[in-house]
């Protein structure tokens, strides 16, 4: 399985985007691979916005898990729970 990681530009992030992605990767199976640039072959794209403005350009036609600051799909969580919630979203697919 291939997961896309798409960051916003990081002008003033209120969460640690890189740490979140690292925590998500630690919980995903070893056979998952990651792509940062070309999302054509990705099954899911994790879009990681640093704040709730969510200005990252979202790849079209893809299954998206949207992190926007301390929120996922609009629901707010403590920052240390975000990775678990991303995994929940991913597992439900």
């Amino acid at each position: 399985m291939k997961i896309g990681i798409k960051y916003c530009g990081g002008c003033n992030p209120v969460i640690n985007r890189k740490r979140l992605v690292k925590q998500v990767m630690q919980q995903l199976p070893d056979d998952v691979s990651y792509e940062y640039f070309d999302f054509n072959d990705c099954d899911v794209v994790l879009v990681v916005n640093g704040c709730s403005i969510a200005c990252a350009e979202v790849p079209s036609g893809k299954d998206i898990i949207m992190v926007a600051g301390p929120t996922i799909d609009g629901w707010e969580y403590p920052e240390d729970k975000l990775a678990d919630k991303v995994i929940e979203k991913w597992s439900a697919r």
Partner: protein
Amino acid sequence: MKTGQEYIDSLRQLKTELYFMGERIENIVDNPYIRPHINTAALTYDMAFDPEFMDLAVATSNLTGEKINRFTHIQQSKDDMVKKSKFLRAIGQKTGTCFQRCVGWDAMNSVYSVSFEIDKKYGTNYHARACDYVKYIQQNDLMVVGGMTDPKGDRGLPPHKQPDPDLFVHVVETREDGIIVRGAKAHQTGAANSHEILVMPTVAMKPEDKEYAVSFALPLDTPGVMLIFGRQTNDERKLGTLDQGNPTYGVVGGEALVVFNDAFVPWERVFMFGETEFVGMMVERFATYHRQNYGACKAGVIDVLIGATALMADYNGVTKASHIKDKIIEMVLMNETMHASSLAAGYESRALPAGNYYPHTTYANITKQNITRYHYEICRLAHDITGGFIATLPSEKDLEDPVTGPIIKKYFQGNANVPAMDRIKMGRLIENATGGTSLVESMHGAGSPQAQRVMLLRDANLERLKELAKNVCGIDCEKEE
């Protein structure tokens, strides 16, 4: 696009004639006084390859359709103008200092737009030249210094009446293949480590100033071009590490006087020559583009300063004091106000006749005007919270000394849970970020405060505001429909 290392390697190929501290500097790249500024500029190259930042750092050229570093982009939309502001804040947060490349970026957008309008009036071909030049910069990912500020001599006299005619850059000879230029551009941020300079006039001109109404571009290692690198406050600390405060990226951008001693400019690199009525437009375009930036790059730099100040409160054990919290709130309030006006200048930007986008002039001028005040006030609060020890800290050599080092660490200890060295490092960062060169740059960069106030008054449309007041009071005047 170039990586940071490729950018640094490309600088080694240049033969820029640069002087500093009484000598010609042959190896600019490894010179300790200049290297921090090179490291900062190199980061702007690397960010275009970093997935965490490329959403802002990379743009698509309107001229070639290729992916380019955003610092070479001609603004194509409101979204571009907002991204500009966000990108600059992101870099400021990583470097804590000026990264220099926005000046040339704004110069390219100014020349791109004004050359188009000159062509429309006179049938010249400046715009095609400007497009070719921008394409060259984009495809080679070059760093351009925007050359606007002339030495200006007697500020009460126009260029042609100066006792020394070279105090504004001017054309001294016209040849079949180009022009010969003489004069200088002052305060040129990043010039020591740029590839090119893009020159624009600096004040509005009348027909008598025709020879001064010139815009052109040159490689900085062109024969006849020389640079004299400026001193900074505390710059001998660059010979060490800890005492610099920000040892990797330095303070401000590294400024130089760029002198043109009868340098030759081929016609294909001339974008204005003699069209005095367009000089004011070019000055205003550049100033407005550049003033928007100050609420972006400085916001990022001040984010670092606020963080450092809050840490100092922790290290000093005063975090819970209500007046400390209140002062930090004040710092945040001022910083976010500045960034908000920079963003507003982008969201309210408009398309120019050439097609590129241009910031809202009032919001851009408000941004810069606030910087000239708020940056000083924020630094004052940082000093207030941090304490006087940043002005009296012993040197890093004393810290390394086996006799004095342990004593310094003992007596500069604050909160017992924090190593004294952390407190000293943070103090040095705050000291260097809040004094001398960095504050003067905030005052005068992109134009001195009065220049913004003139534009604010001009754009305020007071006559309309008077009519509004009269209408509300029922005083006889033309009623609004």
